[in-house]
C-alpha cells in the first residue's frame, strides 16, 4: 500500500482544531509584530547615526546586508546554543532581516526631504534632534511606511520557517503536514499565511494614505 497523501481538505480537522489555529494565529502575529517593531526601533537609532555621520551609511548597509544573506534556517539554528529554542531566538533572527529594508527606506525617505524645508527648520531655531523627530521623520513617513510594509510582509513569510524551532505560527501546520503528508494542514498553513500577509499589507497601504494626505495622488 502506498504512503499516499490524504484528500485535499478535511473540514472536520479544521473544525476540531480551531483552537490550535487561533493559537497559531496569535503566535504568527506576535512574532511578526514584535520583530518589525524591534526592527523599527533599531532602524530609527541607526538612521539617526547615519544622518549625523554620513560615512557610517556604507558600513551599516554592509552589515545589515550581510545579515540578510544569512539563510534564515542557518540563523535560527545558530542561535539555538546561544538563546535556546524559543521565541527570543526567532525574534532576534526575524528582526535582523527587517533591518536592511527598513533602514534603506528610512534613509531614502529622509534624504528625500527637500533642502528648503530643512533650512526653514534650522532657520526657525529647531535643534538637530527636534528637526529629526518633528520634520524629517514625519515628512519621510510615506517612504518609511513603504519600507515597514515590505518588512512586515516578508517577515510573515519568514515566520513560517520558525517551525523548525517548534514555533512557526501557521508554519507549524505546514511542517506537520509535511511530516504526515496531510494536505489539509499544509493548505491551511499556506492560505492563512497569505491571508495574514495580505491583511497587513492592506493595513499598511491604508496607514500610508492616512498619515500623509499630501502624498495621495490620483493614480
Amino acid at each position, binding site marked *: 500500500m502506498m504512503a*499516499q497523501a490524504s484528500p485535499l481538505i478535511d473540514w472536520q480537522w479544521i473544525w476540531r482544531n480551531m483552537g490550535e489555529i487561533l493559537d497559531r494565529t496569535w503566535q504568527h502575529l506576535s512574532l511578526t509584530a514584535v520583530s518589525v517593531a524591534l526592527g523599527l526601533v533599531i532602524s530609527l537609532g541607526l538612521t539617526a547615526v547615519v544622518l549625523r555621520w554620513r560615512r557610517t551609511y556604507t558600513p551599516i548597509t554592509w552589515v545589515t546586508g550581510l545579515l540578510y544573506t544569512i539563510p534564515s534556517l542557518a540563523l535560527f539554528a545558530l542561535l539555538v546554543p546561544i538563546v535556546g529554542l524559543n521565541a527570543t531566538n526567532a525574534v532576534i533572527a526575524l528582526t535582523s532581516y527587517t533591518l536592511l529594508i527598513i533602514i534603506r527606506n528610512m534613509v531614502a525617505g529622509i534624504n528625500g526631504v527637500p533642502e528648503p524645508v530643512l533650512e526653514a527648520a534650522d532657520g526657525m531655531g529647531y535643534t538637530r534632534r527636534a528637526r529629526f523627530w518633528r520634520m524629517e521623520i514625519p515628512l519621510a513617513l510615506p517612504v518609511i511606511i513603504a519600507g515597514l510594509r515590505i518588512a512586515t510582509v516578508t517577515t510573515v513569510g519568514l515566520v513560517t*520557517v520558525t517551525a523548525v524551532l517548534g514555533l512557526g505560527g501557521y508554519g507549524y501546520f505546514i*511542517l506537520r503536514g509535511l511530516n504526515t503528508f496531510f494536505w489539509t494542514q499544509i493548505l491551511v498553513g499556506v492560505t492563512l499565511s497569505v491571508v495574514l500577509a495580505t491583511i497587513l499589507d492592506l493595513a499598511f497601504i491604508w496607514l500610508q494614505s492616512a498619515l500623509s494626505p499630501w502624498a495621495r495622488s490620483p493614480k
Partner: protein
Amino acid sequence: MTVWESMREFLSEPSTWSGPDSIWVRLGEHIAVSVAAVVIAGILVLPLAVWLGHIRKGSAIATAVVNIGRAVPSFGVLAIAFLIFVQIGAGIGEPWPVLVALIALAAPPMFTNTIAGIQTVEPTTLESARGMGLTEREVLTGVELPLSMPLIMEGVRIAFVQVIATATLGALVAWGGLGRFIVDGFAQQDVGELIVGAILVGMLAIAAELGLSATQRATTPRGLRVGR
C-alpha cells in the same frame, strides 16, 4: 569542542570533499537549481513584462504581482510542490519541488522591475525614436530595452540573491543543496558543519550580488551611467 575546532573537524573529514555529500556536490546542486530557477522564471515572465511595459499597461499588475509574490511563503510553496511531486512518483531527493518553489519566488521581482524599467523611458524619447523612422520593434530593442537595463538587471539580481538564500529550505524536503549542511549540522549538533554551510550560502549570495551588480553596471548604456 569549540566552534572553530568543530569547523576544522568538519573540513578535515574526507566525506566533506568527495562523495555524494561533499561540498562540491552540494554547491553544484545549489548553483544549478538557483540558476535554473532564475532563467526559467525569466523566460516565463520577461517577454510578458516587456510587452506590458511597452504598451504602458502594466503598473497595477506589476504592483499586485510583487505584493502577492511577497505574501506567499516559500516554505509553503515548497511543501505543496513536494507533496505533488511525490504523488506523481517523481522521486524523493529530486530537485523539482525546489525548482518550482524558487521559480515562484524569482518571478515577481523580475516581472515588476522589468515593467517599471521599461516605463521609466520617457515618452518623448520614444517619440523621437519613432520620428526618426525606427519601427516599433526597433524602438523596443534599440531604445527601450537598453534604457531599462539597469532596472531589469536589478530585478534579476534581487531574484537571484533571494533564490540562493531560499534554496536552503530544500533540505527540509529531503533535497540536497547547501541547506543540507545546515539541516544536518543542526540535527547532528555539528556546529562546524552548520556554520560551514551557512558561510558557503552567504558567500554564494554575496558573489551573486557582486557579480550581478557588475553586470548591471556593464549593461547600463554609457549615457545613463552615474559617474563613478
